[in-house]
């Protein structure tokens, strides 16, 4: 039953051309199996995963090959059975363009799974703690884009409302849409598991009104469910409604304050793709080794959605979709607003890769420099976080990092709305990214130099202590000598005769022992 509750909206936002129909024509197809998979150890927010395997080792499909590196981190699994051929730095899809540690697996094409028994319906009899550990072992991360480890934190327990995010507001991307159309049952079963873990009272499924098929499919399953736990909420199409804090504002009318977590408003957001991954972990004992990815854009022959194993080279995915329409195309991981431009397609698909967008280069503005800010205020009107983008830009351009921070730089979600409307074509998000990484780097340096200072001080204290101890020893020795000198010669002689007597006694003992020895033998 669709109870159309009144919903709120957030500040700003943009109405964008969706271009979604490009990739929704065909059903989700499985990606071709390839001979080599490259699995980065950092596919999530938090600490890098720790490898559990060594070169030459044979691994089974679904076997954990790297464990979480710290509390906030995720496990990584083998997408195929095969042999580990390298653990080294490889090019990865990251904004910095820098290489990072990866595990390379050569496929043996036997598709041999590691032995595991799925919990299935039985999960209802397990405690939240066990299930959370299970999700952690399955390497589940938020698949909506943030890739935050999804083993659900202690603080998120006993949350009233679970919001299932099927908004998918970014143009071109349709992987969540197709997932909901084709596997609504499983998605909602996954949401049910999350609901069970956090002991939620209701689950609101939020979908943008530009996805009628997905809405129909999800509604059908919700109606069949009949428990009243789920409620579908259709929301207007507005970018970036899928942002966590924006969606919470739309649904609850409340804003998550800067520096706070949604849990404080008694809500928790999870993406539909994450719910599906959780379903697979519980019902199929399948860790996060694949995801649904949109390959789309006007630069690809056959735009479509494919279900791809993590670690598959992007090049192979693009070939499977018919290849580029010409040599002059731009490859973006993610959507046109928040995605990152890649320099090459010799990169692995990672957990965060929800979309490969291929655009002919003419479609993308290729400007090296921009015009000065004219303070028109357009960026302020569209910013969904209600920041002052032009001020952030101004302080960043004169490198006044204190002021940028005070203007809440770290609340910026890098949605790109401000840059989209800016009449001077200022690459605003690039400025914010510079500021964020620069501030973070300075903090790291500050911590390092403080530690070095402490180490140096401790070092000097140790030297000082050792010096004093040496002096004390010397002083004692001198005192002892002086005391002995004071004693009379007779005393000295006595001591010497004593020592001689002692030595003689010892010698006699030894000789006795020596004569006894042969007797024993």
């Amino acid at each position, binding site marked *: 039953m669709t109870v159309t509750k009144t919903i709120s909206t957030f500040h700003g936002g943009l109405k964008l051309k969706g271009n979604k129909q490009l990739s929704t024509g065909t059903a989700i197809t499985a990606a071709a199996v390839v001979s080599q998979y490259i699995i980065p150890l*950092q596919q999530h927010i938090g600490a*890098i995963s720790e490898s559990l395997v060594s070169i030459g080792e044979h691994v089974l499909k679904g076997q954990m090959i790297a464990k979480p590196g710290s509390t906030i981190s995720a496990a990584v699994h083998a997408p195929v059975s095969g042999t580990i051929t390298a653990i080294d730095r490889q090019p*990865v899809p*990251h*904004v*910095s363009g*820098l290489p*990072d540690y990866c595990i390379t697996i050569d496929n043996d094409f036997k598709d041999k799974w590691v032995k595991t028994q799925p919990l299935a319906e039985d999960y209802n009899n397990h405690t939240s703690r066990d299930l959370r550990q299970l999700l952690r072992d399955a390497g589940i991360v938020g698949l909506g884009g943030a890739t935050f480890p999804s083993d659900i934190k202690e603080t998120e327990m006993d949350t009233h409302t679970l919001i299932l995010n099927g908004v998918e507001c970014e143009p071109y991307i349709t992987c969540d849409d197709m997932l909901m159309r084709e596997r609504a049952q499983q998605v909602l079963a996954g949401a049910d598991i999350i609901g069970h873990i956090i002991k939620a009272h209701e689950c609101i499924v939020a979908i943008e009104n530009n996805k009628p098929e997905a809405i129909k499919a999800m509604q059908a399953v919700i109606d069949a469910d009949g428990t009243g736990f789920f409620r579908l909420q259709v929301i207007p199409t507005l970018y970036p409604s899928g942002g966590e804090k924006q969606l919470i504002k739309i649904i609850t009318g409340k804003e998550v304050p800067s520096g706070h977590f949604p849990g404080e408003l008694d809500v928790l957001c999870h993406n539909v793709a994450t719910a599906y991954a959780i379903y697979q972990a519980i019902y199929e004992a399948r860790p996060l080794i694949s995801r649904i990815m949109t390959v789309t854009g006007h630069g690809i022959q056959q735009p479509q959605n494919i279900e791809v194993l993590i670690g598959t080279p992007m090049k192979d995915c693009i070939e499977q979709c018919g290849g580029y329409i010409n040599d002059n195309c731009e490859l973006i991981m993610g959507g046109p607003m928040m995605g990152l431009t890649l320099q090459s397609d010799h990169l692995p698909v990672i957990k965060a890769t929800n979309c490969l967008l291929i655009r002919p280069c003419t479609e993308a503005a290729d400007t*090296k*420099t*921009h*015009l*000065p*800010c004219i303070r028109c205020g357009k960026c302020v009107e569209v910013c969904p976080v209600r920041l002052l983008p032009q001020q952030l830009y101004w302080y960043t*351009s004169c490198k006044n990092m204190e002021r940028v921070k005070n203007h809440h730089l770290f609340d910026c979600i890098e949605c790109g709305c401000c840059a989209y409307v800016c009449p*001077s074509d*200022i*690459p605003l998000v*690039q*400025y914010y*990214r*510079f500021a*964020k*990484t*620069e501030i*973070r*780097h300075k903090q*790291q*340096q500050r911590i*390092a*130099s*403080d*530690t*070095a*200072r402490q*180490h*140096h001080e*401790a*070092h000097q204290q*140790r030297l000082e202590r050792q010096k004093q101890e040496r002096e004390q020893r010397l002083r004692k020795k001198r005192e002892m000598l002086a005391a002995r000198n004071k004693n009379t010669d007779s005393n000295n002689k006595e001591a010497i005769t004593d020592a001689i007597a002692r030595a003689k006694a010892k010698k006699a003992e030894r000789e006795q022992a020596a004569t006894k020895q042969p007797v024993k033998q």
Partner: protein
Amino acid sequence: MLTVIITLGVVAVIFGLILGYSAIRFKVEGDPVVDQIDAILPQTQCGQCTYPGCRGYAEAIAKGEADINQCPPGGETTIIALAKLLDVEVKPLNGEHGEEKLYPTVVQIDEQSCIGCTLCIQACPVDAIIGAAKQMHTVVETVCTGCNLCIPPCPVDCIHIIEVKPTVRNWVAAFPAEPFIAPHAQ
């Protein structure tokens, strides 16, 4: 007239006592200016500034004995920060003390060649080297500041400098291309 002199005299003595007492009672531990300068210095403890460690240099700057451009590890960033703190002109790094490095460095001991002489341990200002007499030594890279003080004492030259290149976990995004200024706006 006399009363005036006496009153003023008494008042002067009282205030003198108060001032003298508070100078002792509310004495600021350490030297705040030196601390502030020391906080800006990179703490590499390399001595390239000709002072034994960053603290010594900080004290010398505070006393006006040293210039602000003698610290190669800190480079331009440190000079700018010092200039701002002390309200003086920014100037380029004094080349006599060394060049600013492109990337930070640490050192590594070639474990095959190390003879276990412990000379490097004695040279390290931050105790970043672990080892014992006649045992193989090793550098804890996360503690090493890259001061290179351990290199000259090594009798078998087995300590090598390695650059610490940025990774995805500590990279800094490039500053975007500067705006194009239209001719009529200049």
